[in-house]
């Protein structure tokens, strides 16, 4: 892959009454353009992601041209569940790799309603009965997956709480995060159980925000910045037969591996590096159990090793493999179209050594991101200085 990220922008995540999804997208886009020192009129293409455009109630990302300028560029809208942002970046990278374009924008935003997602069963090909009986909730899936995983691999509730406490602690060091107040493991464990074994503060919530990246041909990166970050690997994979996925009325007896496993392998293979080479990672923590399971699915450890790793603090900012240094989804919430771009924004900051109080020590050179979502899609990127 010969693609560079030369500009980054982020609208803070949280709740912003009176600010539209498009306002946030434009904010992030302009910040990314300024960061790259490139004019909107110089961009040849854009890819914009959001879930709101397909759920209803959200703007189509391409309507941003009426705010940023009607230059006639190609602008393609993307909506691919929780992997929307990863999919938007993959499309942009493929366009550059194919030689179609030299420089463009990837942008994503969403402004979700308060509370848990409440999709129409029909949107996932399910009968209305599935919602009628009270099973159309993503949170139930995450709870059932970690409940089984704890049973199989000896993960404890204390470790679930440690992951959430780390998220809030890292969020407190991130001025763009929604949740910036540290919380103790005791408070997290004592909170109401939303879906056993997970408590209120172990979950992320849908919210609002936007992210943007200026991407270009790697050999042209130095026109825009002296600190480019290169996309060495990128992959988006759907689920294999037997994978345990969100909103599934049934599962085959034979277990298949998760889509993240395929996406991670493909991403590392493309980049020519392995999980052990990664200096800092942002992975999908829809709830604290997801971060634990995704550590193994991405190849950072074997199933069950997370218990000792997390108890020893290895995934903290100063640890062997810092994970979710910006507070992850738990502290930032999840505006789906922007969530994966937030992860990449954080990795670029870390690799530029611009992450301030939450900067990982040393000279991180290799960063990694992963998003996962309904109905079973994983998207990964491998980024280097």
């Amino acid at each position, binding site marked *: 892959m010969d693609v560079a990220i030369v500009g980054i922008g982020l609208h803070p995540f949280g709740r912003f009454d009176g600010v539209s999804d498009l306002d946030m997208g434009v904010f992030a886009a302009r910040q990314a353009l300024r960061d790259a020192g490139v004019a909107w009129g110089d961009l040849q293409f854009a890819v914009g992601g959001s879930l709101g455009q397909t759920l209803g109630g959200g703007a189509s990302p391409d309507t941003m041209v009426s705010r940023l300028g009607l230059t006639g560029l190609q602008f393609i809208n993307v909506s691919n569940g929780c992997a929307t942002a990863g999919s938007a970046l993959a499309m942009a990278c493929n366009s550059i790799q194919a030689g179609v374009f030299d420089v463009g924008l990837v942008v994503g935003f969403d402004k979700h309603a308060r509370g848990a997602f409440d999709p129409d069963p029909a949107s996932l090909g399910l009968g209305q009965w599935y919602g*009628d009986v*009270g*099973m*159309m909730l993503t949170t139930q899936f995450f709870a*059932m997956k970690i*409940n*089984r995983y704890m049973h199989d691999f000896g993960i404890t509730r204390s470790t679930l709480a440690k992951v959430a406490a780390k998220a809030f602690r890292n969020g407190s060091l991130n001025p763009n995060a929604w949740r910036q107040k540290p919380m103790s493991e005791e408070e997290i464990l004592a909170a109401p159980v939303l*879906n056993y074994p997970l408590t209120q503060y172990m979950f992320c919530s849908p919210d609002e925000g936007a992210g943007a990246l200026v991407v270009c041909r790697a050999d042209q990166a130095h026109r825009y910045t002296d600190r480019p970050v290169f996309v060495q690997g990128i992959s988006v994979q759907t689920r294999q037969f037997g994978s345990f996925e969100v909103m599934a009325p049934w*599962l085959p007896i034979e277990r298949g591996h998760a889509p993240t496993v395929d996406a991670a392998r493909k991403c590392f293979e493309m980049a020519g590096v392995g999980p052990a080479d990664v200096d800092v990672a942002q992975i999908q923590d829809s709830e604290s159990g997801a971060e634990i399971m995704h550590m193994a699915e991405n190849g950072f450890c074997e199933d069950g090793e997370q218990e000792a790793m997390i108890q020893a603090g290895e995934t903290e900012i100063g640890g062997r493999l810092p994970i979710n240094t910006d507070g992850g989804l738990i502290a930032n919430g999840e505006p789906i179209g922007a969530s994966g771009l937030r992860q990449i924004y954080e990795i670029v900051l870390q690799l530029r050594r611009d992450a301030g109080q939450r900067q990982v020590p040393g000279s991180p050179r290799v960063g990694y991101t992963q998003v996962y979502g309904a109905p079973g899609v994983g998207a990964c990127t491998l980024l280097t200085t």
Partner: protein
Amino acid sequence: MPATTQSPVAPGLFTWPSEAPQLIGSRCRDCGVMTFPAQSDCPGCTGDGMEESLFDRRGTLWTFTTQGFVPKSPPYSIKEDPATFVPYAVGYVEFAGQARVEGRILENDPDKLAIGMDMEVVVVPLRVDEDGTEIMTYAFRPVGEAGGG
């Protein structure tokens, strides 16, 4: 007791009325994969040779959780008052040699549920519609629970 009309939450999910209700799935004639609910195509071998097949009445609990907050309605069919909402449990029951099926569980205390415990299929009222019709759903019940059997 006045006579009440009962109606399944959706046709084709379970055999009913029946003293011994069973879930209705489909099995692939080519590779043997079993789905729930029944569908015409096989997600295992990509073929389309599915035929209707009934699940066993008993299985074991593969995983579970509780629903501790009021689900949004729709898609949930019951408009619950947060003040009176009673959490419910859901889980997957593994039917040996068939598939794991998701459903509500008639025991909402997680301390009384355990992965691997024996479960059976029952059909119970989910809610009562405005016209008095009882909407019936399948659910799983721990075997040996008081009143069970």
